[in-house]
């Protein structure tokens, strides 16, 4: 009987972990994607990337990602999520140098990483095999 209780608890724990992981990661990646798309739209309409609006939005993205990274580290390999952090730092460098092309490239890369994480973390046959 004791063993049955342990196994039931383990099954509940496993389901809880899986659900929590899916909810937290999907939520985080969705929000990141929205922030990145927002930045992308703004950058496409301006010539300079060192405007206050872009700086504020970039800082907002950085702050959001730094907070979320701590939670994501519980579920995802740290090395896999550090790429987004690196690209966000590249955004800041591009702002300092006012390199619009580099900024757009980094934004596109962040968008690409977010989509690929969504694909890796989601339940699909490709991830299983």
């Amino acid at each position: 009987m004791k063993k049955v209780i342990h196994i039931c608890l383990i099954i509940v724990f496993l389901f809880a972990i899986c659900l929590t992981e899916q909810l937290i990661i999907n939520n985080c990646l969705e929000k990141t994607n929205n922030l990145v798309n927002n930045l992308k739209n703004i950058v496409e309409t301006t010539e300079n990337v060192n405007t206050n609006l872009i700086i504020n939005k970039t800082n907002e993205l950085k702050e959001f990602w730094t907070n979320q990274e701590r939670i994501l580290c519980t579920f995802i390999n740290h090395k896999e999520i550090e790429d987004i952090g690196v690209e966000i730092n590249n955004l800041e460098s591009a702002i300092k140098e006012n390199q619009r092309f580099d900024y757009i490239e980094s934004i596109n890369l962040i968008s690409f990483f977010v989509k690929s994480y969504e694909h890796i973390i989601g339940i699909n046959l490709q991830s299983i095999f």
Partner: protein
Amino acid sequence: MFTLIIRALIVYLIVLFVFRLMGKRQLGQMQPFEFVLALIIADLATIPMAESSVPILHGIVPLLTLVTLHYFLTIITKKSEIFNKIISGKPVIVINPRGIDYESLKNLNITIDDLFESVRGCGYFSLDEIEYAIVETNGNVNVLAKKDFSPVTINDISSFCESDKRSTNLQKIDENTIPITIIADGNINKNNLKLANWSENIINNILKITNTKKIKDILILTVDGNGKIYFQRKKENFIILNYNNLKENL
């Protein structure tokens, strides 16, 4: 480094918990699926312990999944004889009264040297001392010695004293035979039933004699070549019956 120490402690406690749930079997007593599980668990545990970039959950979740799988596999193997055979295999007789069964040895991928080594480990240095040798599902070899070479028991001595006090030679009274399991954990082994030349009527008769309502209540029922039946109901003491007496009642 401090993180690694904490991680190692957590993983160790979880692996300990997992092995406690798996039971108290030692490495040599493990069934093939348990051995595979032990290997995977050992590998899984080291990943989050040594690699700090890997979340500790990446080690814990597969560990707990495997222990759950092991639990269900154990239940299924207990309930289904066919599944048990698929997962764990079945004991194979490699030495019988005719000698070594070479075909069985070949199928088991055991060499003659391996067999000799195992037999010597059981305390028998000559093959002619052995009536039967069985390779169990966990890989252990068990030996049933011929009557002249098997150790003398108190039962042999008392039988000798009662039956033939004048004889100077102490001999084993009965032939040594391997008991056949007819019922294990409430399930009838149909193959063994045929092997023992038993019909369901005999089992029904045993149920009547022992006041047992259902076959499911029987923990173990074995019969050996001398007709000795070992019978035990779940959570009760065993009793010894005699097949020859049962035949008279049929």
